Each structure stands twice: as C-alpha cells, then as structure tokens.
C-alpha cells in the first residue's frame, strides 16, 4: 500500500479490496495505524473541540473513564475512539498518558489496527504503547470460544485499576444494539461519547442505545456531516 506522506486520509480507504477505517490523525501503514504528519484540519478541530470539552468536564466532575459507543456497527466508532484518544494525548500540559481500551472482543479492530494481527490473536489483554504520542492501548480481551459477555464487575475492576494509572481512559465499546457487551461497558464507564452516522443512525436506535444513561453522554460525534464537501468525495 502506498501511503501518502503529505496529506491525511479522512475517508474510507480500500486496502486489499477491504474497507478499513482510517482516521484524521492517523494513517494506515501496512495494515497498521500510524500518526498522520498533517492531519485533516476540520476533522482534527472537531476532535480537539471534543477533547477540550471532555477535559473540562473531567476536571469539573472528576471522571476518568469514558466509553465511545454507537447504536449499530459500522458507524465509525473505532475511528472516533482512536481520534479522540490521540487528540486527548496531544493536549499540552496535560499529565499522564491516555489509555485506549479495545472493548470489542468480537471485532478486535482496534487491537488489529494498532498492534497487528498477532496481538489480535493473543488470548489475554495486553497494555501496549502505540505510535501515537501519549496513547497506550489495552488490547481486547480474548474471546472464550462462543457467545459470552464479561461481568460488569470485571470491567469495573479493570477500569478502576486503569484509571488509577491513566488520567483518561477511552474505551472503544461494541455496538450496543449488536453486542450485549456494549451494554455492560456502557454502564461501567463514567462518561459516554456517542458516535452517530448522519443519514443512517435513527433516532429510535439512539434512544435504545443510550437507554437511561443519556445524562452521562458528554459528547456526540456526528460522522459523515457535510460529507459532500470532502476532497476525496469530489475526486471520486
């Protein structure tokens, strides 16, 4: 794959005939996400604004764990989690590192993108440094060979331990309406960031996904807004 070095890729890029998520602040290099040298400004501004809001709210309310979740699969949740973590990690004067937790045990996309296929096949979660400044990754917990969920207490305990070491823990949650694990994680994190794909996600799905924790949603990422004006779409 020829990786562009001067421009960021803000949209879907095809790699080996498969759609892979990319990020404004990251580039895909040989199946791995690497930092972008010049991120796409509008996207980066959006995440920086969200990061600023999260930092303020965290300072105000004292929370450290936050989950990035969506109602359905494929709405850009993992990409949003990476971008949010990267933008949080780039905050000047901030203490500590940002931990990105791959909470999607089924897909393990985040682990695969940041640590490769070998890490994705590893049976236990691992803490790993990423190529992004100030961002570490907790890989996804291994699957247990069949449909199952982790107990909330396990997640709560794990997140409590992690939040003691990391001022901001960003959890990439599974899609709530597709994976029950997402419901567990939704209840275990202290704050929520919802990812919505414009024109696809319905109000009803959002209401089902948020449930009774709507008050803990501190940010919403509207994915696909003003899509027509993006350079790549024009080129296409």
């Amino acid at each position, binding site marked *: 794959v020829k990786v562009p070095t001067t421009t960021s890729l*803000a*949209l*879907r890029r095809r790699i080996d005939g*498969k*759609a*892979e*998520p*990319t*990020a404004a602040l990251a580039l895909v290099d040989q199946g791995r996400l690497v930092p972008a040298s010049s991120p*796409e400004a*509008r*996207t980066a501004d*959006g*995440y920086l*604004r*969200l990061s600023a*809001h999260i930092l303020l709210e965290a300072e105000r309310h004292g929370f450290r764990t936050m989950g990035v979740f969506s109602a*359905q*699969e*494929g*709405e*850009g*949740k*993992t*990409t*949003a989690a*990476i*971008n949010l973590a990267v933008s949080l990690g780039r905050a000047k004067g901030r203490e500590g590192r940002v931990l990105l937790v791959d909470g999607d045990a*089924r*897909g393990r*996309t985040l682990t695969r993108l940041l640590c490769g296929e070998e890490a994705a096949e590893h049976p236990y979660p691992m803490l790993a440094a990423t190529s992004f400044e100030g961002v570490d990754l907790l890989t996804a917990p291994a699957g247990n060979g069949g449909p199952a969920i982790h107990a909330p207490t396990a997640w709560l305990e794990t997140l409590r331990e992690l939040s003691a070491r990391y001022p901001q823990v960003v959890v990439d949650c599974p899609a709530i309406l*597709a994976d029950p694990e997402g419901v567990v994680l939704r209840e275990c994190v202290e704050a929520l960031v*919802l990812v*919505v*794909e*414009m*024109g*696809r*996600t*319905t*109000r*009803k*799905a*959002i*209401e089902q996904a*948020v449930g009774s924790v*709507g*008050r803990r*949603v*501190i*940010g*919403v*990422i*509207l*994915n*696909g*807004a*003003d*899509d027509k004006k*993006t350079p790549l779409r024009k080129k296409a």
Partner: protein
Amino acid sequence: MLWRRRWTFLVPVATLLLPATLYAVSLADVYDAKATVLVREVEPGGADSPLPREGTDRPDEVMATVRDRIFTRNNLQSVVPILAPQAETPDPRLLESLAKSFAWEEIGISSFQLIHTNTSPDRAALAVNTLLQAFLDHERAERLRRAERSRDFHAKDEKKAKERYDAALARRNEYRAEHDATLPDRKEGITSELARRQTQISTQIGLISGQRSRVQMLDDQLVLQANQITPAATGQTSVLEETLRMQLAEVNRALKAGEQALAEALATKTEKHPDVIRLRSAVEVHRAAVSTTMAALEKERREAQTRVRESSQAQLERRRKMLQSFRDSAQAALEQAEETLRSHQDRVVELQGHLAKIPETARGLEPIERELEEAEKLLRAREDAHRDARLVVDYYAEGEPSEVTGFSVTAWAAVPVETSGPGRMRYLLTAIGLGLLIGYGLLVLRHRHEGATIASPDDLAGLFPAAVVVSVPLLGSGKRRTSWRSRFAELGTLAYVVLVLGASVFLIAAHKGWVAKPEFLQGFFGGGA
C-alpha cells in the same frame, strides 16, 4: 442509501415486471384509423346570404356537443355489421361497447379526429368512415327536418298574416267607401274645388249683375219703344226718289242751260230765228220735263213717306220683338246664372261640410290604416321568412352533406400501415414505476417503523442538550459483520430478482424475435413485434 435499500426497490420492480411483461407480450398488435373533420359555420346560400341558419353552428358550441352527436344509437348501428357481424340484434350494451372502441380527439378549437383501434387495419378504417358517413347523413337529415319544420311554421304564419291583411284591407275599403267624400286624401281636391267654386260664384255674381243690368236696360228700351208711336224721320230717301232728284237736277240744269242759251240767242237773234225757235222749244221741253219730274218726285215722296211710315211700324215691332227676345234671353241667362250660383253655393256649403268632417274621418281612418300597414308589414315579413325557409330547405336538401352540415371531412380514414399499439413499453414502464413506488412506500413504512435518521447536528443537540456535538466527515465507517442468515436471504433475494428479471427479458426478446419462441409459449404471444 439507495444501494443499501436496493432490495426494497428491486423486489417489487421485478415482481411487477414479470406479469406486466407476460401481459404485454400476450396482447395483439392494433391499428389506429383516423379521420379528421373540420368544423365550420354553416352559411345557407353562401357567406353573404341573408338566409337564416338552422340552429347554432358556432364551431366552439358544435365542438362541445359533436362527440355525443357522433356516438348516437343510430350512427353506431351502422358499424355493427363491420365490428360485430355476429350480433343479430344490436343491444344497448353492444352499442355502448362499440362507442367505447372509438376515440374522439379535439384538435384546436374547430377540428376533431375520430379514431378507431382495431386488430384489423381494413376494418378500423372502414368502421371510422362508415360511422362518419352515418353521422354526416344523420346531421344532414336532422337539419333538413328542422328546416322543413321551420318552413311549415313560416307557411302557417304567412297564411295567418295574409288573412289578417285581407281583413284589414276590407275594413279600410269599407270605411273609405262609407266616407268617400270626406277622406283625408280628398282634402286637396275639395280645397281646390272649393276655391274654384268660389271663383265661379264670384263670376256668377258678376254675370248675374250684368244680366240684371241688361234685363233692366232691355226693359227700359221696351218701355221707351212702347211710347214711340211714329218713328222719327230718318231722312233716308229711296232709290227712286234719289233718281228722281238726280233726274230733276239734271232737267233743271238742262233747263237753265236752255234758258241761258235762249237768252244768249235772243240777245243776238230774233224771235224767229230757227235757233231761237229751237232753243225755245227745247226750253219748253225742259220745262215740261221739270214739271213732270217734280210731279213724279212729289208722288214718289208721298209714296215714300207712306212706305217709311209703314216700314217704321214694322221695324218698331221687330225691334220690340227683338228686345223682348233679348230680354227673355237675358232673363233666362240670369235665371240660369242664379241657378248656377245657387248650385255653386250649395256645392260650396257641401264641400265646406266635407272639409270640416275630414279630421274626423281621418281620426277614424287612422287606426284602420295603421292596422292595415302593420298587417302588410307583417305579411311582407312572413312572406320573406317563408321564402327564406324554403330556400334553406332547398339548400339542405340539395347540398352535399359536408357542405350543409358544417362538418368538412379533411381526411377520411386511410387503412393504417403502422401499428399503434399496444403500448407494451408503457406497461413495462408502468410496472417499473409502480414497483419503484411500492419500494418507496416500503421504504417510508420502514423509515417510520425504525424512526427518522439523524440528518443534522441540530437533531442531536435536541436529544443531548448537555453534550457537545462535533461534526466530522465520514470517518472509519468500517465493514459490518453480516450473518450467514442475512447473506443467505440476500442471495435468495438476488436469485429471485435475477430469475424474474431474466424471465421478463427473455419474454421481451422472444416477442421481438431476437430469440426463438418456446413451443409451449407459441400460443401465448399475441403477435407482432
């Protein structure tokens, strides 16, 4: 979005397309036969003719009703042998179905087309032309019937008007006969006669006055003549007396000449001289002649006086008789003049009476004359109307149907060569459109069922008022895991759509002749391509 919902659209489209294709290819080819008719105003007798028009012939009004007039029961019966030869008695339902097989199209404001669609081009053209001809014949017959009715009506009107006119004329003549002398149109004659009579009266008065004077004069002369016993000497002498006077004067001259010659002879001669003796004897002779002449003259005078006297008496008598005659004549003339005067005066009185009665007669005559005038005017109008109605009848009876009915057939129906239907593509497009519509309806229903999608940041701001909303371009819309079940369902749907669409395409290709028609479907295809 469309790609994501592709099956929602493709399944209804394919499901509807197959039966639509089956239906379309099963239809037989049809042909349209068209006849074009121009509607114009009917001008009986030409454009400038004053003849009345039968009914209304304004093209816009005709166009409003011509459709119903074409598809009447009588007209449609003419096409029954062509379009439904097996029908023994045309019932209303059959006629109604026949009427529906014809189309009527308005072209502009004064033209229309009569169209018939049939699987046989010859029958289509024949049906259109037959129906059109029946329509024209019926229109002409209808107009002729109306014109004849109008003519009969005007004939009755004319007869009534004639009777009224005759009655009014008789009344006027009777009145005029009764008041002949005092009719207003006699006024001038009466006035002139009156003036003439008055002039004659004046003349007669003068004449009478003159006659009276004459009679008086004659009376006076008669009285004067009666007083005159002898007539005064008139001094007139008779011829004999004149002759005697002249003879006496001659004798006296001869005596004086003899005495002078005797005196002269005595002066110179003696008594005895022969000349003196001769002269003396001559003087004596002359003296004797004088005496004799004087005696004769005296006698003649006396006789003349006697004759004069006798003559005067007779003359007086004649004169008196003449005067009397003149007087009688003058008297008679006077009496005649007086009689004439009286007659003139009586006539004048009579004329003045007539003159005085003229206004009254005129007042009495005026309504009669007015009635006669009105009756005459009415009669003339009725005669004109009757004549025009007769001309209109002739016009409709003798003219060509396309001329007298106002429906000019600009193009009779020709046998069509090109097919006009069925609209197979229309059926297919309709099926596709209907399928898309159903797909859209399903999409809407699904949308309602699932709820509205998020379309703007404002939607999210309403849902999460406390959260910050950031908008980013479409990032990382990763692949979605699909289950085998859903994949199987998608494959099944794909197979169904491909099968149905393939069948439709095959049917169309077979109909067009691009591929051979299967044996078992040979009878299914309606024919044509």
